């Protein structure tokens, strides 16, 4: 029996996220830990290198709050809505103070996979005849050692801290996810420290009853934070829907620096955590995000073998 890794968000971020760290809050549209991003803002971390395939609204908020010096990414936008305006303000025209290191989606996933597998690089058939290797010299052409042509290589990405959100974990950090899996497994195994944020803390027996669903084992997890609604306005398959209204609202808020600062005060600095955030959103808003009905998986029988 491993001992409990359950911690508050304040303690987990306080102990595991340090100024200057490379931090990956992963989750591809699904399971984005806004709760952890907001706690990092509240604790006023500085000079972070923020890695994420799709920086999304959470990194727009973190950049607006001044925690980041650099982004590593593959798609920089508010999905289905448009641009990320706080990030645009420091990456366009006269102000390009935020450093950018960009890849394609496959390149980012391959970087985490190389990091997780302790490899010096990962080869892939992307980037041919594009300007991406010019923009980012870390993307390099290599010869196959078997004499059958060239491929591109990307270097491993090993975050100091990876944060993932999940439906459930046990106290030891054994973590189960269903729905879109993104690159959370790769990003977690690649990282030095891992924070898992869950909707629900479950008994070890629940995990052991369905081991195929475990994407990250407790052995690579440093802290388990129980934070219902912790992914809002992102979503959690089977629990709550994507709050598309917020993604649209953010477009107008983030175009105006004063409105952005005010939003950060109202929804991050002046709240002490996720429970207060959910309460401020209100029951009506949250209830509207529940699934319209159930869609349970079939039950499989693993069998008993003695």
């Amino acid at each position, binding site marked *: 029996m491993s001992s409990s890794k359950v911690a508050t968000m304040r303690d987990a971020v306080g102990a595991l996220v340090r100024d200057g760290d490379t931090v990956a809050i992963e989750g591809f549209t699904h399971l984005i830990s806004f709760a952890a991003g907001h706690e990092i803002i509240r604790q006023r971390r500085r000079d972070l290198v923020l890695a994420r395939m799709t920086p999304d609204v959470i990194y727009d908020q973190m950049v607006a709050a001044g925690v980041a010096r650099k982004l590593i990414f593959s798609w920089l936008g508010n999905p289905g809505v448009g641009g990320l305006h706080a990030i645009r303000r420091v990456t*366009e025209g006269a102000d390009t103070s935020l450093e950018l290191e960009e890849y394609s989606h496959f390149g980012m*996933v391959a970087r985490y996979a190389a990091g997780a597998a302790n490899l010096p690089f990962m080869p892939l058939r992307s980037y041919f005849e594009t*300007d991406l290797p010019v923009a980012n010299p870390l993307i390099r052409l290599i010869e196959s050692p078997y004499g059958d042509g*060239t491929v591109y290589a990307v270097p491993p990405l090993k975050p100091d801290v990876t944060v993932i959100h999940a439906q459930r974990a046990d106290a030891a950090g054994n973590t189960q996810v269903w729905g*879109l*899996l993104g690159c959370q497994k*790769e990003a977690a195994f690649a990282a030095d420290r891992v924070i898992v944020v869950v909707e629900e803390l479950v008994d070890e027996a629940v995990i052991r009853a369905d081991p195929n669903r475990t994407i990250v084992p407790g052995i690579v997890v440093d802290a388990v934070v129980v934070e219902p609604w912790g992914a809002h306005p992102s979503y959690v398959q089977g629990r709550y829907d994507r709050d598309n209204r917020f993604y649209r609202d953010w477009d107008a808020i983030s175009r105006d620096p004063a409105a952005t600062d005010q939003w950060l005060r109202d929804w991050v600095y002046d709240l002490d955590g996720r429970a207060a955030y959910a309460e401020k959103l209100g029951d009506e808003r949250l209830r509207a995000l529940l699934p319209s009905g159930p869609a349970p998986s079939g039950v499989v029988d693993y069998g008993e073998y003695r």
Partner: protein
Amino acid sequence: MAVERPGGAGAAAAFSKSEMMIVAAARELAGQRVCFVGVGLPNIAVNLAKRTVAPDMELVYEAGVFGARPARLPLSIGDPTIVTGATAVTSMWELFAFYLQGGLIDVGFLGAAQIDRFGNINTTVIGEYAHPKTRLPGSGGACEIAINARQIFVIMRQSARSFVERIDFRTSPGNLGGAEKAERIRREQGWLGRGPSVVVTDLGIWHFDETGEMRLDFLHPGATLDEIRATLGWDPHISPSLAPTPVPTPEELRLIRDELDPEGMYTK
């Protein structure tokens, strides 16, 4: 919903330019087996095709879904509705490595901020890379889709700002500087993709001719060749057998308006 009504001949025939574009793009997917769906306009066109000309087509979402059956049109490319009822959910590593790079994707459907006559695409920056005038989203999966999907479909509105002689940044390769060079490079480097095959705009349908350049084959109802030329940065190839695009059917319009985009997000 406020829409333009260039059709004009009675309620059944009235449709907007965006609706014509989406319908034309969906029809191009007839007979295709596996389609990689992009965010925005490709998303609605592919979902319309699935309900009309290509009911057996497998929808692949880069978020890690094969065989999606979305019950509603998702705003984002990742949404719980693309998971529920799908054939398979995969990690993004598997999706890009095994499904895309492994050669299972027939059509990759892309949008673009800038495109040139050879179908090379920019979604990265307007202006100089280090100090851009406009910072765009970047590649996402587009760069590897353009290289590894068997063919590429593009859907985008036509304008002089987007259909340019020279793109500011090549994010996703098309026919490079022409068909001959593109074919040689694809062969030498072992690309699975044959490059772009169609560009559907709000004014017409372009396919690619033997030089590797876009050729206008269909002109949408209400659009003119003057408009085509005014919204392009080059002198276009125009098919000698240029034909009018068949207008949307009432059923196609019903699907767009009632099922796929009731809020008019894509069609206004």
